[in-house]
């Protein structure tokens, strides 16, 4: 039921945002029409961090309480986080070509995002290389925790290394860096993407729970002797 509501909400809100982005939001003066990709790019990275933060909390929760649901949520959140992180990297590249005249540059945030992506791809590979079970959950939680804790250090080091990215517009302390209609549009698309995240997460968690139940049933079947 919750699934359905979230699904319908995300379809409607994404369609609405898609319409508003092109027919209501003004065209940004210096970057032109290209800037519209911001409405995918920025919500994606925020949701990446949200998903990975939830995964981090659930990893701690798993090691503490040892309830399987924490492990399921952590796995699903990392999967979603990796997908949104990939979307961020791809849309970022597309946006960078017309504005910076290059698809890729070793700027601090790009580099941090790429490393973040690699760390959590490693997390998913670790899960793939292990048999399903309590040990897999424990090890994945360990990697989830140290991976997330490493992110501030990585960000600090690559910032000192070199930087080019425009500073974060919305969290900037200077006033009037972003026009109000653009900001409203950005927050609307963030809302739409959040519905999508919640919808995918609830579907994925449901699927994972079913698949684990099934695997446990198979494991408990009496062995066939030929």
């Amino acid at each position, binding site marked *: 039921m919750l699934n359905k509501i979230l699904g319908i909400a995300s379809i409607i809100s994404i369609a609405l945002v898609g319409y508003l982005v092109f027919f209501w939001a003004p065209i940004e003066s210096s970057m032109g029409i290209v800037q519209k990709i911001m409405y995918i790019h920025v919500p994606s990275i925020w949701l990446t961090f949200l998903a990975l933060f939830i995964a981090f909390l659930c990893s701690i929760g798993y090691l503490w309480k040892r309830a399987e649901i924490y492990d399921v949520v952590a796995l699903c959140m990392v999967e979603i986080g990796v997908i949104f992180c990939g979307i961020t990297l791809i849309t970022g590249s597309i946006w960078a070509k017309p504005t910076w005249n290059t698809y890729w540059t070793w700027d601090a945030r790009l580099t941090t995002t790429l490393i973040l992506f690699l760390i959590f791809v490693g997390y998913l590979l670790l899960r793939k*290389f292990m048999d399903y079970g309590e040990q897999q959950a*424990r090890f994945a939680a360990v990697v989830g925790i*140290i991976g997330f804790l490493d992110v501030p250090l990585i960000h600090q080091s690559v910032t000192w290394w070199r930087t080019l990215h425009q500073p974060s517009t919305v969290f900037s302390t200077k006033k009037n860096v972003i026009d109000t209609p653009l900001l409203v549009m950005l927050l609307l698309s963030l809302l739409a993407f959040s519905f999508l995240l919640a919808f995918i997460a609830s579907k994925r968690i449901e699927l994972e729970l079913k698949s684990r139940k099934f695997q446990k049933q198979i494991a408990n079947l009496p062995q066939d002797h030929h």
Partner: protein
Amino acid sequence: MLSEIWTIFIKDLRLDLRRMENFFSMFFFSVIILLVFAFAMPADKDSHIIFAPGTFWVTFLLSGILSLNKSFQLEKENACMESLLISPISRGSIFLGKLFGNIIFIMIIQCLIIPLFSLFFYSGFLDHFFSLMLLSVISAVGFSSLGTLLSGLTTDLRFKEILLPILLFPLLIPLLLASVRIMQGILIGEGFSGELDWLKLLIGFDLIFLIISYLIFDFVAEM
């Protein structure tokens, strides 16, 4: 607790000294990587100096992985890991013993590699030897903390040789960047004073991951 750590450390060191194959394979592997880099680079002295820090730390990471891979490999034979875990030694002590083993092992290799390295990449045989050794110790602490933890985690897995670097190297990016930058400072004669911010970052990284790995190792080494 110190005596427990010492016991684990001495046990590992003794085993390593009895069969020297780990030591020799790691040493010659490092030499070969240095050689490959020397061939892959432009031949003039100037570019050697520019590429030297990067080369040095890539060699450090790649040969360090060998030390980490063997760290828990020994315990797989004859169910040694299980015996270690039921022995009256805390998990933290096992971790610290292994960690010091790895650090010492890496430092012995570095002792031999640094003179060779300076011979290959800039003329002086023992130029900057002590500052580079000190820097290697500081980096080895952070490298081995995360490395020992993850090597304990990957020992039983399929494809562990490939999974360990995949998990470890992205996490080590701050350490790598800091070490390369500090080494540049050392090579141009500034010593450690030129890159104090990076040194602080490096030491911070060491402390953070030493403590976290020590605390979290309990969960890796459950039976």
